[in-house]
């Protein structure tokens, strides 16, 4: 997953349920939440097990992501090889969908997932593409996340999450982003 580098402030604008569409300087800006989720270690798995085995695993993982995106009311904007870019208007369904995806995947396959989530104003580009800092940040956080881990900026946390908690993950330098970002790790609050 490569995205253009840009400067992202420590606290990107959060959405918290607002879905305003704003036209500024001739471009349409919308508030969205993005998640990038991908298979951790997929390249090594493919190298070890072969292309056919990798495709079988990927079919299962994609099916899981597709099914849970649908029930949570969020959209798969793009498939990215062993990952996906997920978009939603409100943060909570995106976060909860990703937590469910990782939990369900853990029971279905031996390949861990990892994800990054971020919210903010973005430009709606050519109808169905999104350009903006929140997209870049979500992608970079996915790259930073460990096995079965979801990272997000602390600024986008809400108290409305269902069975999901945010655990402080400290201030980290995110590659391609000038200012350090206060992060949280999102995880199940079932226990």
């Amino acid at each position, binding site marked *: 997953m490569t995205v253009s580098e840009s400067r992202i402030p420590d606290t990107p604008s959060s959405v918290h349920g607002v879905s305003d569409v704003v036209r500024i300087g001739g471009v349409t800006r919308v508030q969205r939440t993005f998640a990038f989720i991908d298979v951790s270690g997929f390249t090594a798995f493919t190298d070890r097990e072969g292309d056919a085995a990798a495709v079988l695993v990927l079919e299962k993982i994609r099916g*899981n992501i597709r*099914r*849970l995106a*649908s*029930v*949570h*009311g969020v959209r798969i904007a793009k498939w990215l090889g062993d990952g996906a870019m997920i978009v939603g208007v409100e943060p*909570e*369904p995106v976060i*909860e*969908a990703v*937590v*469910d*995806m990782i*939990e*369900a995947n853990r*029971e279905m396959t031996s390949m861990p997932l990892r994800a990054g989530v971020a919210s903010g104003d973005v430009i709606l580009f050519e109808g169905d593409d999104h350009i903006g800092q929140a997209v870049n940040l979500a992608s970079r956080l996915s790259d930073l996340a460990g096995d079965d881990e979801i990272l997000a900026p602390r600024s986008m946390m809400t108290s*409305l999450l*269902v*069975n*999901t908690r945010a655990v402080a993950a400290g201030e980290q330098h995110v590659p391609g982003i000038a200012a350090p970002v206060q992060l949280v790790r999102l995880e199940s*609050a*079932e*226990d």
Partner: protein
Amino acid sequence: MAKGDSGFETEVVKVLAALRPGEIMTYGEVAAEAGFPGAARAVGRVLRVSDNLPWWRIVTSTGRLVPGLEAEHAGLLESEGVMVKDGRIVN
């Protein structure tokens, strides 16, 4: 809200509406029973935005009650004969 064209919310509501007093399910069990295994948090989302559903009959997989509503949750469960201790149902 859990939405989309999957029929998820309709199926979840059917499962929840069929629960009788004293019957307890976890979010994950409701999702699986509705035909959507793994969608536990989407069940919670349906409960959060819907009225007239027996939300108190649903607990987490560890039996924990709804955070912030423990007293009300426990009261409703105990009125149906379900034992609660330290914020969790007692099996």
